[in-house]
């Protein structure tokens, strides 16, 4: 080994305390990059393979009923449509022996014989249907696993108000249901919501759809995939007479949307998070390297005098940064890959893929290592420049004494004299080492901003859950009828055991028009004295349902560009097909979907109905024995198409959120801690080395190591409090930014930062500052000050 490389190794070893602190930050940066980029690539590659494998549809159309013959005439030659498949799709309830509550799910029809079709399935266990007409079912694999069902088991489905006993022939997954949600759900509930694939012929017969379909999935030709709107508008027009309820391009397909928002989120974080950490590392490395430049002034000068060229010295000192970068990069890449494994495991809990493994992404690791090296070298350049700029003659002369300039505060002598000399030293230290102070402030800013962001996410999630489940939807169960019913159905439900309150709902699927703005959606008719759905404004105030006109959620109103007082054209899917003109009465807030509400009776009247009911909301006695009884009766009601257990949804959501939040609290706190620790340790140890003689003098004068330590503590406190003072507002801005980025049509997060979150962030920052003082204190206590006094700096 070259002697200069040997010197480099020993220099690195001598600076190990400071480097270790720095290394932590670099490792976190690379770890974040490697883990998130690996997971991103693995998820995206798996997704693409899976979509191709099962011929994932580019669009889906739900309609009332379309004869297959008409369909082939209408869509057969339509430009832009590559292939399509008519299906039968219904929400259904299922009854499993030994399971109290009725389960719900979707029936989806498949051809009687396997073949490459749009939205195909991949069999996981068992096999395909044996006969087109037999009562056989293939189950969504996650549901089957959660309910311990497999080939040969039997279950009962209520199809079109008739109970059918079916035999499970296999379990399967499909790209359509990577992230499977029941109505109103936010996370997959595999125990209680499944997909039941039925043979086409059998499904058509069961739902009285012989020779017809109520759902179409299809793929577009290449050039229309990116811009499907025109084709889909055309399809919608063509199929309008068949009662189109929804036209969903892939971009808005539920499972795809959730998956992509996760993948896109990763894509943003991959850039944003590692950059923050590596930027802090650059700044801290710059401080360290400037110190080393000072320290090695004479050595560098001597080497130059001996005949080392600037290029040789550049390469020598830059290797200091490169070595740190390589070490941080290697550790970060390995840890990143390991934590990618953890993340993939978490994803497989919620996202169903044929194969989602933590494949080592070698390119990502190499790139992560490269990033680390590049950032680290960037951090050393300024210090190296200082070394190179020094003429050898100049570097032989002892360093000119530090400029003893007065700091700004000293101009006000009266104020200055209020500080004891140790505070004066602290203030001078802070103002003189501006780069070091700035780097400390920057690290604390980033650390506290990240913590605030994490607490904001938690607060917003909690607020969303509370708003949605405690303020807006207060029912225990929402039942949806298979057909439009009348008050008789409401009375029947009211007679069920344990039911305390029943409120009828009248849901009308429709298209809203306002000028060139158009939106498919629905209006929910609510009873005038409804207590189980309470529309609210952003402040949480209940907004009464007006006698006339619509309540629109803010997002829907924005999309349609209407304000209270404007009118909307409404084109109902069912009932009369005429266009109706409805006034907009008020705007309300909701975080999930785009709802519109109207008065139950008024809506009925407008659609020439009276007492029409499409569903009910219930408040029930929640004692277990009563609920058991309620469930038993519910299973006997064939008119029910879907059951949504609101309280259970809430509980499940809360459990998952708490679990995920715990993970992120721990991770982010650790990462922020690395920032605080790294920065404080780095600057304190440098400061300690620089002021070696000063400290030794104090010790000789009789100051205890604790009293000397206080100078450093005060300095850290000043810098980090200042950093937090910057970080909290910066974090607020960051929260706003992220909140906006996550607001979409399907899902929106309220913007909430609880007072406690501010306080906890500040306390954690303070705690880290105090904790990081511990190693500094030890370093002071262990310092050999007698030796320092005699040393020639």
């Amino acid at each position, binding site marked *: 080994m*070259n*002697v*200069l490389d*040997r*010197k480099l190794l*020993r*220099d690195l070893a*001598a600076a190990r305390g400071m480097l270790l602190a720095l290394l932590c930050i670099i490792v976190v940066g690379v770890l974040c990059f490697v883990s998130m980029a690996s997971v991103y690539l693995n998820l995206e590659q798996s997704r693409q393979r899976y979509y191709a494998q099962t011929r994932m549809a580019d669009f889906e159309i739900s309609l009332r009923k379309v004869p297959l013959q008409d369909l082939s005439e209408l869509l057969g030659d339509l430009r832009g449509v590559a292939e399509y498949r008519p299906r039968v799709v219904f929400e259904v309830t299922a009854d499993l022996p030994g399971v109290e509550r009725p389960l719900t799910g979707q029936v989806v029809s498949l051809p009687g014989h396997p073949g490459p079709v749009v939205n195909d399935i991949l069999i996981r266990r068992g096999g395909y249907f044996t006969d087109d007409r037999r009562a056989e079912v293939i189950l969504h694999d996650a549901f089957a696993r959660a309910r311990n069902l497999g080939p040969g088991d039997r279950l009962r489905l209520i199809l079109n108000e008739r109970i059918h006993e079916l035999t499970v022939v296999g379990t399967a997954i499909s790209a359509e249901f990577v992230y499977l949600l029941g109505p109103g759900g936010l996370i997959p509930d595999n125990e209680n919501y499944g997909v039941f694939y039925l043979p086409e012929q059998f499904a058509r017969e069961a739902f009285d759809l012989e020779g017809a379909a109520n759902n179409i999935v299809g793929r577009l030709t290449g050039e229309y995939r990116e811009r499907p709107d025109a084709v889909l508008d055309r399809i919608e027009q063509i199929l309008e007479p068949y009662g189109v309820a929804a036209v969903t391009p892939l971009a808005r397909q539920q499972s795809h949307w959730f998956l992509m928002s996760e993948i896109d989120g990763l894509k943003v974080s991959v850039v944003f998070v590692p950059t923050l950490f590596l930027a802090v590392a650059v700044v801290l490395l710059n401080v360290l390297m400037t110190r080393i430049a000072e320290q090695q002034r*004479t*050595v560098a*000068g*001597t*080497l*130059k*005098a*001996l*005949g*080392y*060229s*600037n290029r040789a010295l550049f390469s020598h000192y830059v290797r200091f940064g490169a070595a740190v970068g390589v070490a941080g990069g290697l550790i970060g890449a390995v840890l990143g890959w390991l934590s990618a494994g953890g993340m993939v495991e978490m994803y497989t809990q919620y996202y169903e893929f044929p194969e989602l493994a933590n494949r080592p992404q070698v390119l990502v690791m190499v790139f992560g290592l490269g990033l680390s090296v590049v950032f680290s070298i960037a951090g050393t350049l300024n210090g190296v420049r200082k070394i190179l700029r020094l*003429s*050898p*003659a100049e570097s*032989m002369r002892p360093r000119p004494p530090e400029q003893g300039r007065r700091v700004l505060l000293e101009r006000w002598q009266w104020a200055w004299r209020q500080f004891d000399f140790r505070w004066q030293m602290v203030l001078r230290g802070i103002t003189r080492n501006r780069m070091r102070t700035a780097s400390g402030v920057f690290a604390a800013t980033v650390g506290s901003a990240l913590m605030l962001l994490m607490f904001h996410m938690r607060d917003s999630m909690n607020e969303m859950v509370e708003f949605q489940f405690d303020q807006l939807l207060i029912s225990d169960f929402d039942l949806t009828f298979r057909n439009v019913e009348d008050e008789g159905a409401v009375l029947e439900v009211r007679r069920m055991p344990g039911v305390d309150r029943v409120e009828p709902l009248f849901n009308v699927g429709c298209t809203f028009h306002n000028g060139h703005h158009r939106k498919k959606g629905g209006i929910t008719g609510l009873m005038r004295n409804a207590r189980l759905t309470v529309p609210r404004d952003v402040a949480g105030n209940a907004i009464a349902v007006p006698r006339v006109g619509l309540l629109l959620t803010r997002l829907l109103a924005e999309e349609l560009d209407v304000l209270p007082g404007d009118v909307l054209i409404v084109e109902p899917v069912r009932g009369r097909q005429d266009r109706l003109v409805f006034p907009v009465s008020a705007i309300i807030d909701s975080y999930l979907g785009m709802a519109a509400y109207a008065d139950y009776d008024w809506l009925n009247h407008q659609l020439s109905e009276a007492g029409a009911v499409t569903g009910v909301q219930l408040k029930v006695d929640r004692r277990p024995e009563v609920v058991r009884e309620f469930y038993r009766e519910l299973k006997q009601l064939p008119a029910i198409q879907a059951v949504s257990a609101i309280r259970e949804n809430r509980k499940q959501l809360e459990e998952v959120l708490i679990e995920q939040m715990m993970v992120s609290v721990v991770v982010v706190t650790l990462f922020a801690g690395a920032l605080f620790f790294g920065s404080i340790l780095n600057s304190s140890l440098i400061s300690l080395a620089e002021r070696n003689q000063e400290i030794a003098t104090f010790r000789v004068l009789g100051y205890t190591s604790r009293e000397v330590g206080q100078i450093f503590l005060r300095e850290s406190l000043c810098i980090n409090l200042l950093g937090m003072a910057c970080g909290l507002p910066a974090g607020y801005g960051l929260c706003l930014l992220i909140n906006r980025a996550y607001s979409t049509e399907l899902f929106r997060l309220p913007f909430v930062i609880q007072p406690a979150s501010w306080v906890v962030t500040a306390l954690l920052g303070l705690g880290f500052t105090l904790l990081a003082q511990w190693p500094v204190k030890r370093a002071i206590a262990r310092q050999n000050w007698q030796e320092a006094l005699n040393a*020639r700096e």
Partner: protein
Amino acid sequence: MSEADSQTESEQTATAGPARDAAPLLRLRNVGRTFHTGDVAVTVLRDVNLEVPRGQIMVIVGPSGSGKSTLLNIIGGIDSPSTGEVWFGDRDLARLNDAALTRYRRESVGFVFQFYNLVPTLTALENVVVSSQLSDNAMDPAEALKMVGLEHRTHHFPSQLSGGEQQRVAIARAIAGNPEILLCDEPTGALDLETGRNVLELLDRLNRDFGRTVLIITHNSAIAAMAHQQVRIGSGTIAEAKANPRRVSAGEISW
């Protein structure tokens, strides 16, 4: 060594030196050096004319602030004159660019500093290698250490060596690259009398046995007694430059 012996020897070398080669190793013509700090210009050297004969020991004596270190730096190619010429063979150092000066230092100069300037994280041997690895016709570093009598300390770090030993390592480093001239800046400045004498003896031996040109600058006029050429510098100019017909051996010098 007796006084008579040393005298005979000095006389021999004093006459033998210039006789070896008539052309001087270095020639300084009207060299001046002015430093600018802000608006203030400080002239440290003015009109310095000096010839350094090949194969001899030249001692430049002057009080601190007299410009002797600046002169040494210019001769060593780590500083450039503001005016004048510095001829090394057929090269004018004043006109060389940075790369050429680096090559000059690498090939032709060996430095010995007052505070040794060893790399603290390298052992004695490694410190010598730092210099020898730069030169194509370098000595074996271990051999260089043996020449300064430190073959038993090769793997010690500077902090484990006495001041005199450190300076001997520095001299070994200086000679390892086989330079034509050894430039010594106050080589005994940080040493006690006995150790200082040892170092001077070592330099004397390098000149005598290996024909090295040695240039020593010092504020200590006693050291001038061992020189073939004695130069006195004051306020940036050469006050006196003369051959020393009565050289004294380094062992006899005292201060």
